[in-house]
């Protein structure tokens, strides 16, 4: 397979800077609150109806309110970069179900396993990260180049 790089859209600087802010947020959360910044775990725990989750609802809610308001805060200083979404509504629903179910089953997503877990040198998170990256590449290839649905 021939690999072609999309140099016009290559943005390593902003990706690195954004990544560092994500890492900084994760560091602050564990230092000041003692918690892991795993978004699927935080959202899943917040909507968990089990009463054992009650004592965690405050910090989870506050973190997510901060996360959801970040677009608003960003556009106070600069125009918000566009989110270009090509997926159809059907694909969005199917993908959302997979992401919700899969992150709960695998106990984490790109943030909890990919950033926090790997930073903690967790083998479990390394296996999880390899798994979701692998299926991400494979499914993307199948969807765009075999089924040609993109």
């Amino acid at each position, binding site marked *: 397979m021939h690999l072609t790089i999309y140099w016009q859209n290559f943005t390593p600087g*902003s*990706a*690195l*800077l*954004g*990544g560092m*802010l994500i*890492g*900084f*947020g*994760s*560091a*602050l959360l564990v*230092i*000041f609150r*003692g918690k*892991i910044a795993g978004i*699927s775990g935080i*959202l899943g725990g917040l909507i968990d*109806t089990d009463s054992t989750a009650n004592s965690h609802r405050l910090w989870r809610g506050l973190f*997510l*309110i901060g*996360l*959801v*308001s*970040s*677009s*608003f805060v960003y556009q106070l200083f600069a125009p918000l970069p566009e989110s*270009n*979404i*090509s*997926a159809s509504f059907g694909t*969005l629903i199917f*993908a*959302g*179900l*997979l*992401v*919700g*179910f*899969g*992150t709960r089953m*695998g*106990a984490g997503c*790109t943030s909890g*396993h*990919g*950033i926090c877990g790997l*930073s903690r040198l967790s*083998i479990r998170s390394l*296996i999880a990260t390899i*798994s*979701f990256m*692998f*299926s*991400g590449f494979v*499914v993307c290839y199948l*969807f*765009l180049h075999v089924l040609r649905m*993109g």
Partner: protein
Amino acid sequence: MKNIITFVTGLIFGLGLIISGMTNPDKVIRFLDIGGIWDPSLMFVMFGGIAVAFVGFKFVQNKSQTVFDDTIHLPGTTHISKELVIGSLLFGAGWALAGFCPGPALVALGAGYKEAFIFVMAMIVGMTIHDHFFKVCGK
């Protein structure tokens, strides 16, 4: 004070997602599309994130409590289960189809994208199906 910090932490995390390009599904898909014209930019998100978070986790490594006397909760499981692998494979599939993972979807929801709203609703349903039906049946 710690509640304000928690809110700010979520805010910084979200700003990082916006700046990095993670909240743009087309960019995410171009990153996963190694068969097309590949945009490797988002690999640098992981480099930057790990470099900084690593220092944070080193800082709390031998501590059991935060400055606010809260217990530090670090995952203690080391078992590599089939759920870990299958769940992560399913997550990767959904991520590639829509270009959204949970954090960026919530940020885009906050920016008012109806597609993100649909995705987040389906994601919550998926989480609920797992936690209330699947996990319960497995026990």
